[in-house]
């Protein structure tokens, strides 16, 4: 009789049950046969309550993000890759090199193991491509109905590059505002999957890790003030945050903002403003006007910045408004939304 035989997890047809979060053998098996199998690295393999990290020269940057997206799988990605990209980006835009991530999972009872494996595999691939390691994690299971399949929280730690001092408060009147590519791709990819919308449209999320792009920008020596990745709330939210923090105004040129025709068309159909729609793989850069051209070229030279554009400038405005010079010739405010963008009939 084999004494150390455990029947392997049925990753094809099995489901999460309450035992998997119980802290006992079932949970250990889940960690071993699913999480560690795909995410495995030396640090994770330490196998202790906390992971000891190698010392780093320089200051540390830390960021955290929770992901509760529905649907879990969408064109261009899934919640796993998103969870990695989102936190890598939050660390990277500070001018830091992201190194390590933690990953906490809240799983719903009944969640298919096959789906979980797909998600974890995506996370492993995303981490590998971004050059980061997932070094510690946690798993909990809640009763059926208490979570949308899975919620994931990732925390990231990175090291600030030498001489970097970026902040949302550093924008000054006269500075240039640039974006790395087309807006609204992620939000539209999600909306097109949701129940009430029946589009047969080719929307793909732009979910991506931006640390290669941010490193290139810093290495270019351009006079950067700040970098931000606009996510929920779209360009409008992020630019308003910057305007508030820097106590300036911002003026955008509508004609310069890159957007895919299909995204623009879908927004028209729904009565939504693309400036309010989520992104997951785009960068806003504010830099000194003299650095604008160089920064634009650096962005465009990178695969994730091919459609980069100079979209506006920072202004001296005591009200800290973000305004748009419309294609039409007039001017209007770009406000942040009070909540979810709701499609209109009128």
């Amino acid at each position: 009789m084999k004494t150390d035989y455990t029947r392997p997890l049925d990753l094809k047809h099995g489901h999460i049950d309450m035992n998997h979060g119980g802290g006992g053998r079932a949970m250990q098996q889940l960690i071993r046969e699913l999480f560690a199998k795909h995410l495995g690295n030396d640090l994770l393999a330490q196998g202790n309550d906390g992971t000891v990290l190698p010392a780093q020269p320089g200051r540390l940057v830390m960021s955290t993000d929770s992901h509760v997206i529905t649907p879990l799988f969408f064109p261009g990605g899934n919640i796993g890759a998103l969870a990695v990209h989102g936190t890598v980006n939050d660390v990277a835009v500070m001018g830091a090199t992201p190194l390590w991530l933690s990953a906490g999972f809240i799983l719903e009872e009944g969640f298919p193991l096959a789906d979980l494996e797909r998600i974890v595999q995506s996370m492993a691939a995303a981490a590998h491509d971004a050059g980061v390691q997932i070094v510690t994690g946690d798993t909990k299971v809640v009763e059926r109905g208490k979570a949308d399949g899975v919620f994931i929280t990732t925390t990231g730690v990175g090291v600030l590059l030498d001489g970097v001092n970026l902040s949302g408060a550093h924008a000054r009147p006269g500075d240039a505002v640039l974006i790395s590519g087309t807006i609204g791709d992620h939000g539209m990819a999600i909306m097109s999957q949701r129940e009430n919308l029946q589009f047969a449209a080719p929307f793909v999320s732009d979910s991506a890790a931006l640390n290669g792009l941010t490193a290139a920008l810093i290495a270019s020596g351009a006079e950067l003030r700040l970098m931000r990745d606009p996510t929920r709330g779209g360009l409008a939210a992020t630019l308003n945050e910057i305007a508030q923090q820097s106590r300036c105004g911002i003026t955008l040129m509508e004609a310069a903002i890159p957007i895919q025709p299909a995204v623009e068309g879908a927004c028209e159909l729904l009565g939504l403003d693309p400036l309010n729609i989520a992104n997951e793989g785009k960068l806003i850069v504010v830099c000194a006007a003299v650095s604008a051209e160089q920064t634009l070229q650096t962005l465009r030279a990178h695969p994730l910045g091919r459609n980069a554009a100079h979209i506006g400038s920072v202004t001296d405005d005591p009200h800290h408004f973000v305004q748009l010079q419309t294609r039409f010739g007039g001017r209007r405010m770009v406000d942040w939304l009070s909540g979810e963008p709701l499609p209109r009939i009128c």
Partner: protein
Amino acid sequence: MCLAIPTRVIEVHNEFEAIVELAGVRKLVSIALVENVQVGDFVILHVGHALTKLDPDEARKTLELMAEAGLAVDPATA
């Protein structure tokens, strides 16, 4: 009132249903309110229904009128 957008008919299923397209986005809509819809027609879409066809000749005439309005004024004196 009303958010309504011009879209192009690319498939007609029957007198009640058609598929329209806008900038590559396709949608199944009702054409119950419009008579004699053909592929290639442009219709105004509102809450999932085509309301009426758009007349390309009239559209062109309107644009010409708009252009004339601008030309009639000498920019130097405006």
